[in-house]
């Protein structure tokens, strides 16, 4: 337990351990739906199966994304990718009754939720699950998503994190307003530019006091936000050198935020393609990539950047000679680059593909295949690699996106986890009953007693 009680210090101490999280992506192009063993993306059975497998492998947490509007491609819902997913908290509440230990993380947006309502719902999930809930804080600023909500699109990009931080502070005060179930709640009041909250909370603190906070954000503002507020940050930097660099940066920001060097854990998003031998793993990778990026997916990928239909082009041929549509600047998602940048990018890509002798499909695979986040190899080789991450404290764990549902964690749990346990870098049992305990996080300090005053932000 020593690592769990690291005092607030300016010196970073590696935990020497790796934790896993499982991310059921729901809407994405990385999950293979074309294979015979690909299961449903919405049936409860898929979620139950994969969450229970993760729990068998002592994963710290199971994550769900949030959908607020369907992705579009050239003005229509995107036909080629996995699309459609259940509400995160509803699904996690159901999973709470068929799991015992694994943490349950709901991605929830600060822009299109009300703080009091969301805080109550997360506290509710935390109580129902016995202290296993977490909130992955995300923000949105586009009116396109806002079209599905009463508020509409009202948030300036520059305000995104300010708004999110005020939201999180309010949620923390709501969660902290009850010490125990016997203690009467204190009123929480917040008057801000975007919302006003005046609420007397009605839920006591959970076994882990309040939901664990996860956050992803790579910009300086995002990193500072995480350094001030989050317990765990999802980084986009799993490659060793980048991971070490990211850790250093985050440690500095955490110290500057007054929270100590060890306050924020890091879990990069990652993909594992594993087999008994390196050769088999390489073969498997080929199979995975070809199912992820079929001929139509390759063309559609280019269409996002070209802003026009390219269905006449041969996926096995060279990149299109025609130029992108440059005036594509609508609010709809899917157009990856706007204005003059599109033409420049197209020129660059054509040259690159020609240089490397890549077809459209090969080129798109090279651009989309999560090269930076993929661990490919034999179980033993990858275990050795991860042990090195643990030794230096490059990361605290990995958030794994399985490319197959619902069996995509089986090889990790059956083969990689035991290898990691043998190396002494992976838990051999759950450390407690709450997510906070699994992660070795200290009980959170209560927010200051602000009951009597209105907090302006």
């Amino acid at each position, binding site marked *: 337990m020593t690592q769990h009680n690291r005092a607030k210090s300016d010196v970073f101490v590696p935990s020497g351990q790796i934790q896993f999280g499982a991310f059921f992506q729901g809407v994405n192009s990385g999950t293979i739906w074309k294979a015979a063993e690909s299961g449903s993306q919405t049936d*409860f059975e898929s979620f139950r199966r994969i969450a229970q497998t993760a729990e068998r492998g002592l994963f710290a947490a199971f994550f769900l994304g949030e959908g607020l509007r369907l992705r579009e491609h050239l003005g229509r819902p995107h036909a080629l990718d996995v699309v*459609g997913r259940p509400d995160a908290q509803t699904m996690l509440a159901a999973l*709470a009754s068929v799991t015992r230990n694994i943490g349950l993380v709901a991605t929830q947006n600060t822009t299109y939720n009300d703080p009091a309502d969301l805080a109550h719902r997360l506290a509710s999930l935390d109580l129902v699950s016995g202290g296993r809930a977490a909130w992955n804080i995300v923000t949105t600023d586009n009116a396109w998503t806002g079209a599905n909500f009463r508020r509409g699109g009202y948030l300036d990009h520059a305000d995104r994190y300010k708004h999110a931080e005020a939201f999180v502070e309010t949620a923390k005060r709501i969660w902290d307003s009850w010490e125990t179930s016997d203690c009467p709640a204190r009123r929480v009041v917040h008057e801000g530019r975007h919302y006003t909250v*005046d609420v007397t909370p*009605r839920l*006591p603190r959970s076994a882990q006091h309040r939901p664990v906070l996860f956050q992803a954000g790579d910009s300086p503002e995002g990193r500072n936000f995480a350094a001030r507020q989050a317990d765990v940050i999802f980084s986009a930097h799993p490659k060793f050198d980048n991971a070490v660099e990211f850790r250093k940066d985050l440690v500095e920001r955490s110290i500057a935020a007054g929270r100590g060097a060890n306050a924020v854990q890091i879990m990069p998003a990652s993909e594992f393609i594993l087999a008994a031998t390196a050769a088999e793993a390489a073969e498997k990778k080929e199979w995975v990539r070809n199912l992820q990026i079929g001929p139509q997916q390759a063309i559609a990928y280019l269409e996002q950047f070209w802003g026009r239909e390219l269905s006449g082009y041969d996926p096995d041929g060279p990149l299109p000679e025609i130029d992108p549509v440059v005036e594509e600047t609508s609010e709809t998602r899917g157009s990856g680059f706007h204005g003059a940048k599109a033409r420049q990018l197209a020129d660059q890509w054509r040259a690159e593909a020609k240089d490397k002798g890549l077809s459209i499909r090969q080129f798109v695979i090279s651009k989309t295949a999560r090269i930076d986040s993929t661990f490919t190899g034999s179980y033993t080789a990858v275990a050795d690699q991860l042990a090195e991450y643990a030794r230096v404290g490059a990361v605290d764990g990995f958030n794994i996106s399985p490319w197959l549902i619902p069996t995509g964690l089986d090889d990790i749990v059956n083969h990689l986890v035991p290898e990691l346990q043998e190396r002494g870098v992976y838990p051999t049992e759950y450390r407690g009953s709450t997510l906070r305990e699994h992660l070795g996080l200290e009980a959170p300090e209560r927010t200051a007693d602000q009951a009597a005053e209105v907090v302006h932000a």
Partner: protein
Amino acid sequence: MSNIQGFLAIELDGAGWDGADLTRAVLVAESAGFHAATFTDAPAPGRTNALQRAAFAGPATRSIALVPEVDTVYTEPFHVSTQLASLDYVSGGRAGWIVTATESPEAAAAVGRPSVTGAALGQEAAASIEVSRRLWDSWEDDAVIRDVATGRYIDVDKLHYADFETPADFAGAGYSMKGPSIIPRPLQGQLPVLVPASLLDEVSADAVDGVLVSAPAAELLAAEVRDVRARVGASVAVIAELDVVLDARGQAAGSRVAPFDGGRAAFAGTVAGLTDFLESLLAEADGVRLHPASLFVDLEELGRLVLPELRRRGVLRAPVQDGTFRDLLGLERPASRYASATAAPHGAGK
């Protein structure tokens, strides 16, 4: 809907419960033979979110319908629709929705909105129901095609923008909602929607599948049920609301609890008296929802004595194994309204 046999629902409350309490309560209700469990969302210290309690109960149960209250006034209709559709998935098609329209200044203050009162409450409810129904239909049943040959996961022609806008005479702050839903069509197509009779002025009977009927006293309940039946017709389930406290464990009903608050008709007395009363009530109503004074004390008597006797008398429907909530209510699974616009000429069901 008029059936000789009726169904029984039970309100499980849930204040101060953890997951283990919840599992126990819903399993006891299911094995007692209740057809549906409802989950109040009225604010009370220690009471967790109703929809999450229903979702938690989903995988633990097999045949009982799970019906949470969800507010329509201070919630986002898009979220409400998605959450309810998800409840249908995690319960294998046993989800329903008791529509509430919260009239409390506290609820308004919590989300920083002006308080909604009077007829505007019903308008908010009607709009929210319409948004959910459109979103549930916005993916046609066979929209997920997984067509390897063409690389298409979905058939885009089977996804539809709901394009909802509040009506011009909407009392509250009007809004619009685009769609389509983020989740494929619920297993039941449309979840059964139940509303309290008090909302029927603004919420059309065509928009709902069931009405919850209250009366100030037990002897007035049957007449109230007849009145509502006359208003909504036979195709809408009429469900009587009844508080219950029984003589149990050697104690008279009257000594066990303080009198009910008067909002609903109450029955206090013997098992035999309640059994007779429910039999007569089920001759008028499609179902009765019981609000037990003390869940586990009264539930034990109900499960051990009252329900078996009602079944013996042929008054109760058999539980529907692996059935949906719509099956229980005798409702067909409707086609999506958008599918009918292109494929079939007749109007869409609700």
